[in-house]
């Protein structure tokens, strides 16, 4: 009999004497103090655990947690009897927290765990063990200001990203510099969006899964939890209508604002910064595929970039009109809609935001001038005329220079012909 075994026997004996005999059913009848006779620190020598002694527990930690007052066996089901018949297994939180458990099992993390993956997060990763605290407690690992570091703990790890064929650390890291990440880090705001706010807390799924909270169709209502006013506008807009009709090409919040990279509209790196808006809208509205598929007006980007507004914007004058100035941004409506800012009746008012004294003349003609016979006949004709005229002029000049060079070589009455003073 080794010393350890003797100790286990003695401890069990003491526990048995100190407590009424414990049945399997009334397992949690065991007092914490009884468990501590073996699992307490008292009289432990260093290195005892390595020699097979039971793990040590600090009862204070449990008392400070949400589970204070619980008996050990409420969670450690296999430890209801002393001495334990076999080594107690893993704690299953799901026996009390059923909905959380079923959500977790349906999540990508839970499914991976069931497949046998062991480097996926479980309950304790975010909630702790004996020290479980309410998620509203700032000391909790799952508290909004702490959770980002937990998620990024794995998702910033290039190794983890590689093994699980994930997009890569940079993609997730970008969140830290986003307007949401900054609000958490710098301003310490507990209302700023953190990972679980968009991805869900237990049922995290990849975006291509229809049940995912970050699936395309869910995004507007996702963002709308914090930005309800914008969601309302978006839902009324042609883009919102398109999405509801199942048109997956219709842009959602993330298409214009980015996902983990969302920054303020005043930030020059934002896709919705004044100078970048034309390219952002143009990524669909200059696209031949999308314009043709949904019968939209074409070349909205290039025609804008050739206008005076576009040129001024490209050269850095941000106060000039960009797409959003005329079309709106969240509440984009087609010009056929009487409520649209670009409806023919509203154009003078829309232009009037910048131009004093606008008249109905502002709406007479196209704003996006496409230089073609169909687009703007007048401009097209002028361009054709000038192109021919300039070409002819240049050719005649070249011809004239040729003649002049020839005649200067000719003799004229013994003098170099035409080498006289010429001006012009």
């Amino acid at each position, binding site marked *: 009999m080794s010393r350890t075994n003797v100790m286990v026997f003695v401890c069990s004996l003491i526990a048995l004497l100190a407590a009424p005999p414990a049945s399997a059913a009334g397992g949690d009848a065991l007092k914490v103090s009884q468990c501590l006779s073996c699992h307490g620190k008292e009289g432990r020598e260093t290195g005892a655990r390595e020699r097979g002694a039971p793990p040590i527990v600090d009862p204070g930690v449990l008392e400070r947690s949400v589970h204070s007052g619980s008996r050990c066996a409420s969670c450690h089901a296999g430890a209801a009897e002393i001495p334990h018949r076999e080594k107690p297994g893993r704690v299953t939180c799901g026996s009390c927290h059923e909905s959380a458990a079923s959500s977790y099992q349906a999540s990508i993390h839970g499914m991976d765990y069931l497949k046998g993956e062991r480097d996926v997060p479980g309950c304790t990763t975010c909630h702790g063990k004996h020290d479980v605290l309410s998620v509203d407690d700032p000391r909790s690992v799952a508290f909004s200001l702490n959770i980002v570091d937990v998620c990024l703990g794995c998702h910033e790890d290039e190794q983890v990203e590689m093994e699980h064929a994930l997009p890569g650390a940079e993609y997730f890291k970008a969140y830290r510099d986003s307007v949401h990440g900054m609000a958490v880090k710098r301003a310490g705001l507990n209302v700023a969006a953190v990972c679980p706010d968009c991805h869900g807390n237990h049922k995290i799924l990849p975006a291509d899964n229809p049940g995912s909270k970050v699936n395309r169709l869910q995004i507007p209502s996702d963002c709308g939890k914090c930005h309800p006013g914008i969601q309302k506008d978006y839902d009324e807009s042609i883009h919102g209508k398109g999405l509801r009709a199942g048109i997956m090409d219709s842009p959602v919040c993330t298409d214009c604002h980015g996902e983990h990279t969302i920054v303020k509209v005043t930030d020059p790196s934002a896709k919705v910064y004044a100078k970048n808006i034309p390219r952002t809208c143009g990524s669909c509205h200059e696209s031949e595929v999308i314009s043709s598929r949904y019968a939209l007006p074409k070349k909205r980007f290039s025609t804008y*970039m*050739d206008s*005076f507004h576009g*040129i*001024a914007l*490209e*050269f*850095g*004058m941000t106060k000039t009109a960009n797409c959003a100035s005329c079309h709106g941004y969240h509440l984009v409506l087609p010009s056929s809609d009487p409520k649209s800012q670009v409806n023919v009746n509203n154009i003078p008012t829309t232009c009037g935001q910048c*131009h*004093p*004294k*606008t*008249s109905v*003349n*502002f*709406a*007479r*003609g*196209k*704003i996006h*001038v496409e*230089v073609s016979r169909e687009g*703007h006949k*007048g*401009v097209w004709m*002028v*361009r054709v005329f*000038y192109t021919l*005229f*300039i070409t002819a*002029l*240049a050719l005649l*000049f*070249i011809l004239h*220079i040729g*003649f*002049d*060079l*020839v*005649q*200067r070589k*000719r003799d*004229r009455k013994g*003098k170099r*012909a*035409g*080498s*006289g*003073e*010429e*001006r*012009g």
Partner: protein
Amino acid sequence: MRVFEFDEDREKERYVEIMPVFFRVQHLILMITVGVLFLSGFTVLFHRTRASELLVAMEGGVEVRGLLHRSAAVVLLFLVLYHLYYILFSREGREEFQKLKLQKKDIADFIGVLRFSLRLSDVYPDLDRYSYKEKFQYWGVNTGLLIMILSGFILWFETASMLLFPKWVLDIVLIIHGYEGMIVFIILLFWHLYNVHCSPGNFPMNRVWITGKVDRELYSRDRRGYTGKK
């Protein structure tokens, strides 16, 4: 005894002043303003080029570009107005302007020079004080300037213009302004650049715009009637 003596009579005999000093000043102002207008205008006309980006940066941003363009335009406008006053209300100007009017002789001269170049004739026409080439440039650039000034003002005061014209008219005015600017540029590039810089005997440039004087001998060759030398 002096080694060198400036002989005014001989000087007069040798040179003829065809560009008095106030002509030269006007030419200088025209040169500078048109240069600025080209540089600041082409940045907009060819806005998709890398050169335009650099030019805008050099000009100090897109707003300064507009300011430069319009300032040069105002200076040029004053020059044009002065010129109009000169040809309308000063005797000298009126007389000089008569010589710039297009006549049948100019067409005959042009054909004559062509015939001479093509070796169909051995006689080079006898030109006037202003040859058909000089007249062509004067009238060509003036027509261009008139169009540029009119279209430029319409675009400058776009809000006022839009009270009169619909937007599609301004679109046309804008494209006219751009192409007309190019035509003026083409005239200077192919015509002026050749005639006073690159043509044989003038390279690298004819200095008349600085000195105002030309060699009487050379000048008289094609203007036998005008200078009275046969």
